[in-house]
C-alpha cells in the first residue's frame, strides 16, 4: 500500500502532510517517557513486517501490522509509522519522501481510529479484549486500503477498480493481521502490560 512518488497530485500530497503532521503531533504529545522504547520496538516490527511474505495460493502477501500498532500504541502509532515508513522509503525505496505524508496518514489514521473505537473492549480484558484486538488488526488494513484507493481517486484514478483490487489482495492479510494482533495484545497484556498504551493500563 505504499503509493509511489509521482502518482498523486500536489494538493493530495500537501493534504497528506498536513494530516500526518497533526497526527504525529498528537502522538508525540501522548507519548510519555516510559513508552518510548516500546514504541520503537513496535515500529521496528512494522518496518520489517513488509518484508515478511506469506504465500497464499499463487500470490504472496506481506504483513502490514498497522492495526497491531494502533492496538498497542494508541496515538503513538502515528510517529512510529512515520519513522518506519521514512526508513522504508530511504532504505528499501518503497513509496517515497514527498509521498511520505500521505502514506503515513493512510497507514496510521486507521490504526489510531481503531484504537479509539475498540479501546473500551481492549480495556475490559478477556474475550472482549481478544475480539477488540482482532477487529483492530482486521479493520485497520481494510481502512488503509480504502484510504489508499481514496488518495488515488483524488488524483484521478478510478476509485472503485483500485479499491477492489487492493481490498481483494488484502483480504487474507486482514484475517492474518486480526489473528496476529489478537495474539500479540493478549500476550503483552499478560506478560508486559506496561508496553501497552497507558490508557489501557489499570
Amino acid at each position: 500500500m505504499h503509493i509511489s512518488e509521482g502518482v498523486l497530485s500536489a494538493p493530495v500530497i500537501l493534504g497528506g502532510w498536513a494530516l500526518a503532521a497533526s497526527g504525529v503531533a498528537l502522538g508525540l504529545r501522548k507519548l510519555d517517557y516510559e513508552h518510548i522504547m516500546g514504541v520503537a520496538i513496535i515500529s521496528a516490527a512494522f518496518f520489517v513486517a513488509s518484508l515478511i511474505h506469506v504465500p497464499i495460493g499463487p500470490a504472496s502477501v506481506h504483513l502490514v501490522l498497522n492495526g497491531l500498532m494502533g492496538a498497542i500504541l494508541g496515538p503513538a502509532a502515528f510517529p512510529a509509522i512515520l519513522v518506519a515508513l521514512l526508513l522504508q522509503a530511504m532504505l528499501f525505496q518503497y513509496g517515497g519522501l514527498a509521498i511520505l505524508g500521505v502514506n503515513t496518514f493512510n497507514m496510521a489514521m486507521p490504526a489510531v481510529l481503531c484504537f479509539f473505537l475498540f479501546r473500551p473492549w481492549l480495556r475490559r480484558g478477556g474475550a472482549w479484549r481478544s475480539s477488540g484486538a482482532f477487529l483492530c488488526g482486521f479493520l485497520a488494513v481494510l481502512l488503509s486500503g480504502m484510504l489508499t484507493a481514496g488518495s488515488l481517486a483524488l488524483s484521478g484514478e478510478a476509485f472503485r477498480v483500485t479499491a477492489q483490487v487492493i481490498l481483494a489482495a488484502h483480504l487474507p492479510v486482514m484475517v492474518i493481521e486480526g489473528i496476529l494482533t489478537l495474539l500479540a495484545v493478549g500476550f503483552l497484556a499478560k506478560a508486559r502490560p506496561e508496553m501497552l498504551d497507558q490508557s489501557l493500563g489499570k
Partner: protein
Amino acid sequence: MDLIRMLILLVALPGTAWAHRVNVFAHVEGDTLHVEGYFQRGVPAKQSPVEVRNGTTGQLYIQGETDVEGRAALTIPPRATADRADLDIVLRAGEGHQNHWVVKAEEYLPANPRPTHRPTSQATPRVSATASPPYPVQNCPPPTDPTPLIEAAVERKIAPLRDMLLANQEPGLKEIIGGIGYLVGIAGLLAYARSRRPASGQS
C-alpha cells in the same frame, strides 16, 4: 451506498496485485526501445501502460502497454530523435505503483561522427607490434562503421549482468539491520531529550 457496494465487492475478485513498488528498466536496440516492468521477486508488471516522454519538457511521445511478461517494445518516434531528447519512460502498474527510467539521448541517437580512434593507436607504427595481438585487428574492413555491431555485442554481453543487478534490488540484511539501528537510535535520542527535562526541572 458506495460503502455498501464496496463491502460487497470486497468479497469478490481474486486479486494478485500486491507489491511494494514496481521497477522499470529500458534499453535501446537499434530504433527499438525495450521496456521491462516487474515487481519484487521478478513478478512481471503485466498489461501496464507505458509512456515515453521528453525528459525535459514532459511532452508525451508514445504510449504502449506491457505484455504478459511485463515487456514492451516501442519504436522510438522520429520526433524524439529530432528533439535529441532524453526519454523518460514511465510505467504505471496500478494501485499507486509507478516508476520511471531515463534513456539518455546518446543511448539511442545515431552515433555522431566523432574521433573513435585514440591518437596514440594511430601514431603507433604497425611494425612495432611485435607481440601478436589477441584478436586480428588488421582484418577489420576499415570503411564499415563497426558501432552497431559493437553495440549489439555489448548489449548481449551485459544482459546477464543487468538481470543480476535487477535481481539484487530487494532489500538485504544490511538495510534491515540499518533500519532497526536507526529506530533504536531515534528512540534513544527521544528518551534522552525527555529525560533531561524532569531531571533539571525538579530538584
